[in-house]
């Protein structure tokens, strides 16, 4: 199972009316969708409103999602339309060149393009430095497990084969690696005044 299959698992639950599953999807994608919306709308409170509206529309239309594309691609289309409609309702001309191709799975350019405001970029760079430090400070076996997972995209079974250890150990090592990084990130974020 891959991370996009996790999305599928959560989507299926949301389609059965499980709001908690949809909440995890919102938490996962709200930053990227807000960054996309901010390519159309500049006012931060408007960005928040349109982002919120996009997720509400997505939930109400979630029965129509058939899984032909990745969930994020589908969500991206809804958010882009919500932003364009918002501009039309405010009698402003949509000026963004955001296209649906930007959202296609595996497009690193899309991730790089949708980073949002300069403040968000600066905050992201600081966090990136913290994460990099935390990763390099990890014990070797934890670092290896997390690296194989995040950079190589290997499954737990494959990582277990590479590291020659049980799958349960891989799962535990990845968790402990994330735990250590999270401690540092949490500290950094609590120091950031703009972070909620």
């Amino acid at each position, binding site marked *: 199972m891959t991370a996009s299959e996790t999305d599928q698992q959560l989507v299926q639950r949301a389609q059965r009316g499980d709001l908690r599953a949809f*909440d995890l999807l919102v*938490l996962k994608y709200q930053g990227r969708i807000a960054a996309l919306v901010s390519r159309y709308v500049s006012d931060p409170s408007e960005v928040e409103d349109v982002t919120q509206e996009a997720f*509400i529309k997505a939930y109400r239309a979630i029965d129509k999602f058939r899984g032909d594309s990745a969930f994020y691609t589908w969500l991206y289309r809804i958010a882009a339309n919500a932003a364009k409609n918002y501009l039309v309702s405010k009698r402003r001309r949509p000026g963004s060149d955001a296209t649906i191709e930007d959202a296609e799975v595996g497009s690193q350019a899309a991730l790089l393009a949708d980073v949002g405001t300069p403040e968000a*970029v600066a905050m992201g760079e600081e966090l*990136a430095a913290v994460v990099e430090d935390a990763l390099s400070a990890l014990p070797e076996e934890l670092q290896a497990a997390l690296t194989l997972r*995040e950079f190589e995209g290997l499954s737990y079974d494959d990582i277990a084969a590479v590291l020659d250890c049980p799958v349960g150990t891989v799962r535990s090592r990845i968790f402990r690696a994330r735990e250590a990084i999270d401690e540092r990130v949490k500290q950094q974020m609590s120091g950031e005044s703009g972070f909620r």
Partner: protein
Amino acid sequence: MTTSDRELETLSAIMDGEADELELRRVLDSTSSDPALRARWRRQQMVRELLQTRRVSQPNIEVSSAVTEALAGGKSVYKNPLWSMAVAASVTMAVVLGGQQLLVPNNNAMQGSVISDVVGGVVPVLGAQPVQASLGAKSLPVAARQIDTADNERREVAAMYERLAQDRYRNLGRHHASAAAQTHPAPYISYIRAPAPTGQESALQ
């Protein structure tokens, strides 16, 4: 390993698509009541994005609570008041237009009532288009059924105006009596006389 640690490990496995359905259900049960678990999930996603792209999109945005609240309660919580005002204005407009459709008499049904016998004159009639009378001062042929319908509607409108006038007299009387009772030194009779529309006198309390 504590329960909380087990949940956090499961959360990590869910992120990688390595948790089973039962684990997912357990974590979903916990996330709805545990803000720390939700925050952890969010940070984990952010760390993944940072590791893979060295960037993070809008780390300061938080709409999940408002989205859940709107979906669970069926209402939308907008941060920008202009947008909610726009929505409210649209609803008001729809109500006003709908109300007008109900209150204004149907033009087709009122066709018979706009015919004037006054030579060269224009007769203003409520809810109707004015029509220039013919030079021969003769009524245009109008179907009897249409005239009946128009007469009925005219009577209903007249009755409605009469009710409104009586309500206004009544309110005026109350207001007058109340004002007089507060300002007049002597005991005051709390009624006024108002001409009844039908020609008979009535004392409205």
